[in-house]
């Protein structure tokens, strides 16, 4: 049974110069001059209870627009959205009770009052029973460490603290469905890791269905088993992450810093490396994982001299999408 159904969903933005003044407003209401931007273009998918979906795409792909339509904030231009049998924009309030939503770039907390007061407002709004509320706060303190800044106003929090607080706020009422739009954007590694663990824990213990928007592949690799990829509003892929990686994500780059000066790379090319570039004392090696792995490459370098440092750059979502264009996959749905 799918808990979220999206069918032929589209959203067009009619971009029109809004004019100032009453007369301008009047003209604006009736004029037809506008540019049409298809932010979401004929997307369909279904999601079952308990899934964590990675919703991927480069900047401007239409991810946030989709999430806004699912949350009932934006009205679709055409197509259908159904969440637990409800149409979000028609039943905004009822739908909101089933949802937790976090937009990484905004806060849903009240700016001037302490987190604790915001939470208490939410408790009344969602009619959360006291025991459940207390239990949740306790759990959130444990995993996300919110007690450190529990009595601080939102405007005084750092981005990482604010994001953690927002995440808690969205989960206080034990929603069945959680939408996270770039919840890790701009955060340091430690906080990112905390947030990922938290999402994982919630999904496991409550069977919460999660849609996670990001362009951080690591978020996806740690959390999602299924990914949906969109670009320029259109669906590019819907399926297992592994499959996506096997087909498109086989190319990696390794960055090696060595002391000695190597002149001859013929041997490496023979081993199956695709490309070698020098960047000061660093060497960037592009290779296909199907033919050679990072350990072999490092091994070769260590034989040539002292390796000071190395870094493997995994698959980048922008790269994956670029490749989808080069080599479109048939029947991927």
């Amino acid at each position: 049974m799918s808990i979220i159904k999206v069918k032929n969903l589209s959203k067009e933005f009619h971009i029109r110069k809004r004019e100032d003044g009453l007369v301008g407003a009047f003209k604006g209401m009736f004029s037809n001059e506008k540019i049409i931007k298809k932010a979401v273009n004929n997307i369909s998918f279904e999601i079952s209870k308990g899934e964590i979906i990675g919703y991927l795409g480069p900047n401007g792909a239409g991810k946030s627009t989709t999430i806004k339509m699912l949350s009932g904030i934006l009205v679709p231009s055409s197509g259908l959205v159904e969440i637990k049998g409800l149409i979000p924009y028609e039943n905004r309030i009822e739908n909101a009770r089933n949802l937790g939503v976090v937009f990484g770039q905004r806060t849903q907390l009240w700016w001037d009052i302490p987190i604790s007061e915001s939470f208490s407002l939410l408790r009344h709004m969602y009619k959360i029973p006291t025991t459940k509320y207390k239990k949740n706060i306790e759990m959130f303190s444990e995993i996300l460490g919110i007690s450190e800044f529990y009595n601080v106003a939102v405007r005084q929090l750092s981005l990482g603290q604010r994001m953690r607080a927002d995440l808690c706020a969205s989960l206080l009422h034990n929603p069945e469905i959680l939408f996270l739009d770039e919840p890790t954007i701009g955060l340091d590694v430690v906080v990112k890791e905390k947030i990922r663990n938290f999402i994982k824990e919630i999904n496991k213990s409550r069977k919460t269905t999660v849609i996670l928007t990001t362009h951080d592949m690591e978020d996806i690799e740690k959390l999602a088993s299924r990914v949906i990829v969109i670009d320029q509003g259109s669906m590019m892929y819907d399926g297992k992450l592994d499959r996506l990686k096997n087909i498109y994500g086989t190319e990696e780059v390794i960055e090696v810093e060595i002391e000695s000066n190597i002149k001859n790379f013929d041997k490496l090319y023979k081993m199956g490396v695709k490309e070698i570039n020098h960047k000061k004392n660093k060497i960037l090696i592009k290779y296909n994982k199907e033919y050679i792995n990072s350990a072999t490459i490092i091994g070769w370098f260590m034989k040539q001299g002292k390796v000071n440092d190395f870094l493997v750059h995994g698959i980048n979502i922008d790269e994956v999408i670029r490749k989808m264009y080069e080599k479109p996959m048939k029947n991927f749905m």
Partner: protein
Amino acid sequence: MICYLQFAKNVFQSKLAYRMNVFLSILHRIATLFVEVSIWSAIISQTGEISTEMGMISLKEMVSYAILSTGISIIISSNTILEFEDKIRTGQIAMDLIKPMKFKLYLFFENLGNNLFRIIFELIPVVIVGILCFGIDTPSREYAFFFLIALINGMIIYFILTCILGQLSFWLLTVWHLDKLLNDMLKIFSGRFIPLWFFPKIFIIISAFLPFRLIYFSPMSIYLEKVSKIEIGNILIQQIGWILILFILDTILWKKGINKLVVQGG
């Protein structure tokens, strides 16, 4: 409902943090009141009373009028219009819409918290100063009761008016000038500073077709017992009529606006 009352409480509390502002605001109100009263004294003092469309008006009544109208302006002043503009322009309205609450009701209760704060920390001090310095007429219990009803209706009319104008941000880039426009209309047609008694007939006829006088002038003329019981009934019916009309307009605008809402950014 508890949830909405919480909003009122929260606004009240966060306003407590800015007490210095309150102090300045009270000073400003009292200064304005003194100016108003001085002007009326200068105009009326020779004769002791003044003849109008509604009969003779005494200085004492005019002073009461000035105190009352200052009081009403304290209660109704709000920044709903600018709040709307801000929420829609920044897209922060999205964060209100993902919550299971009625947006207008939320704004209304926030306003209520604001009003309550102003009643306690501004209205009461200003009125006390006004009464101690100048004295005020008091109506009979019955008229006081109808005054309160008319006052609340007037506040609701004002609130819906600000919602309507604020909502035009769905279509307009800025609405702060509409905020100014509303204030100007109120200054002229509501009787905020000059009672409609003193205005020419044609002016009174125009204002009869507008809702503004129902916010200031009508409740105050009940307070000063310048109207008969039948006229009170008439005022209340007009107020309710306007509330209905404005409410319907507001609902239509909201539906249309939400449908065309584009949340910028994020």
